[in-house]
């Protein structure tokens, strides 16, 4: 390597900037869909973007903060019922209802954090599930929220059938792209750096001054709010809210499969995972519960043999990334040319 005249730390390469532009163009064309696409396609995309948002949130928790939650359905359900509460019962505009729900869930998550953070590792995971069950049981026992039979969202009827789908679709786009954007933003920030340190070694990170606990709680709150918003949008599409479905652990099953198969610990992974998940579902639609068995088996095999998921397999061959979240060192040589310094791989000798 030729002697360097100076060094710079960058986060985005040209490739990343190109990817960002492509993303914006994609967003623009997708946003125009309601004027030329059919309701079926929009529904599928709503599902795609809300699942993607949920997956990104779970990935933030597990892939970056090392917190495995099997109870995010608590916040999905709260998002659904919050929407019902603010839009149907209190007559707010659906957008205002979503905002209010998000705020409310933030506060609730702050309260639940006091409980779950007394646990660690696998016990933390089951603790999050208990929290979800508590909410499920409370709602299922509450007459004004429809008890066990559930409720139907009626306040969206004011927009007409097409208007409702379009509104939900745009919200889904916002939620999906937003989750990816927020995820990338966090990872580029100091919080992201702290999280990566925590993921590698909590003790080491703490000794460097990282407030490990606050970082984890921050991610927990962000993920809770993100899941709640995604939950609200999901049920704007589904319209019928039942406690067992809204607070069901099946949500966690879907999210986990998406992230594990797509790739934990990267922002690109959940995108691939959501595509694979929905693709597999279409493919195996006629086989009932065999579909879930296949999903479970693929997840197990992925955990055992390809721990970084499909994206990990891809990047092992071709080291690409779509989002500039890592810090890279660039050296300016004597001739003024900038040379990237490849990162030292810590996995080479294991």
């Amino acid at each position, binding site marked *: 390597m030729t002697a360097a005249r100076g060094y710079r730390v960058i986060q985005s390469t040209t490739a990343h900037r190109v990817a960002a532009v492509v993303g914006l163009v994609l967003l623009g064309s997708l946003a125009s869909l309601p004027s030329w696409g059919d309701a079926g396609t929009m529904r599928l995309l709503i599902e795609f973007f809300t699942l993607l948002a949920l997956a990104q949130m779970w990935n933030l928790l*597990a892939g970056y903060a*090392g917190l*495995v939650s*099997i109870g995010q359905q608590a916040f999905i359900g709260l998002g659904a019922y919050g929407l019902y509460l603010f839009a149907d019962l209190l007559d707010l505009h659906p957008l205002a209802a979503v905002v209010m729900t998000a705020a409310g869930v933030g506060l609730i998550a702050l309260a639940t954090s*006091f*409980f779950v953070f*007394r*646990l*660690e*590792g*696998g*016990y933390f*995971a*089951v*603790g999050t*599930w*208990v929290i979800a*069950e*508590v909410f499920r*049981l*409370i709602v*299922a*026992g509450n007459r004004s929220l429809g008890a066990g039979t559930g409720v139907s969202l009626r306040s969206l009827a004011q927009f007409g059938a097409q208007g409702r789908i379009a509104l939900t679709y745009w919200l889904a786009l916002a939620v999906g792209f937003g989750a990816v954007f927020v995820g990338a933003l966090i990872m580029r920030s100091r919080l992201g750096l702290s999280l990566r340190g925590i993921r590698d070694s909590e003790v080491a990170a703490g000794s460097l001054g990282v407030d490990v606990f606050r970082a984890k709680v921050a991610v927990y709150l962000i993920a809770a709010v993100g899941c709640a918003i995604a939950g609200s949008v999901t049920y704007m599409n589904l319209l019928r809210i039942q406690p067992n479905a809204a607070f069901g*652990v099946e949500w*966690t*099953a879907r999210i*986990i*499969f998406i992230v*594990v198969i797509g790739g*934990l610990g990267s922002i690109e992974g959940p995108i691939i995972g959501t595509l694979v998940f929905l693709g597999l579902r279409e493919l195996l639609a006629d086989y*009932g*519960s*065999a579909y*879930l*068995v296949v*999903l*479970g*088996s693929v*997840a*197990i095999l992925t*955990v*055992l043999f390809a*721990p970084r998921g499909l994206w990990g397999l891809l990047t092992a061959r071709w080291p690409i990334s779509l989002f500039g979240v890592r810090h890279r060192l660039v050296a300016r040589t004597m001739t003024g040319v900038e040379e990237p310094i490849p990162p030292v791989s810590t996995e080479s000798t294991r």
Partner: protein
Amino acid sequence: MEWLNAVVQGVLLGGLYALLATGLSLVFGVMRLVNLAQGDLSILAAYLALAIVQATGINPFLAIPIVVPVMMIAGYGLQRLALNRTVEQGPLPSLLLTFGLAVIIQNVLLDVFTADSRGLDAGPIENASIHLTDEISIGVLSLLTLLVAVAVLGGLSWMLANTQLGRALRATSDDHGAARIVGIDNRHLYGVATAIALGTVAIAGIFLGIRTTFGPSDGPTQLISAFEAVIIGGLGSLWGTLAGGIVLGVAQALGNQISPTFQLLAGHLVFLAILLFRPRGLFARVGARQS
């Protein structure tokens, strides 16, 4: 008086929870691994017993000596073939793997046995009861469950305290690197721990099946109950787990007295209260740690 009866029922129910929780506790102690498929494995045992009973017509209790060894062998295999790869890698891989396993078990059971509720018929013992007073009676089956739980816990405790295997399990739980130095083959020992866990879980599942009806998706509820019993009782103590199971059982029974739909929620609320005010559990062993 009904309340006293409820407490008694709760104590007896605690035995069942303790049986479920023991497996969870042992596996976590030795390997720092939480098996999310634990509950589904107990339901699987109940279905295996059902299949045997349907094929041969024997009493479900007699199916226990058949199902338990099968489950123990399955547990050893599961640990050595799949879970051992995840043991020293932090909590994430084992949680993901056992979660996947739970989903697979639930859906295979659904496919094979349909979603219908099933029960294991053990004959008149299911309704027999001992009347202590006019208002307090003890179900013979419930009492038997508690006694079996105490016997299993007692046996396990004795084994851990007095045998070379027990010492090896405790040592591996302390320091698996130093355990290797002494000549302990960790991979084999982890397999043994899971085998024991699945054995106790199988007994619990069969008793559960006799006591009440069960379906393919009942696993998660059992997992949560087991987990709550462990946390309430405190990590690192088998008898603490029994106490935790009893506290949970009593909480649920009292909740049931208030309203049948309140039963589960009552248990969760007591669990959360303990988590908030005595996070180490009621009987935590000094030195026991979560990670």
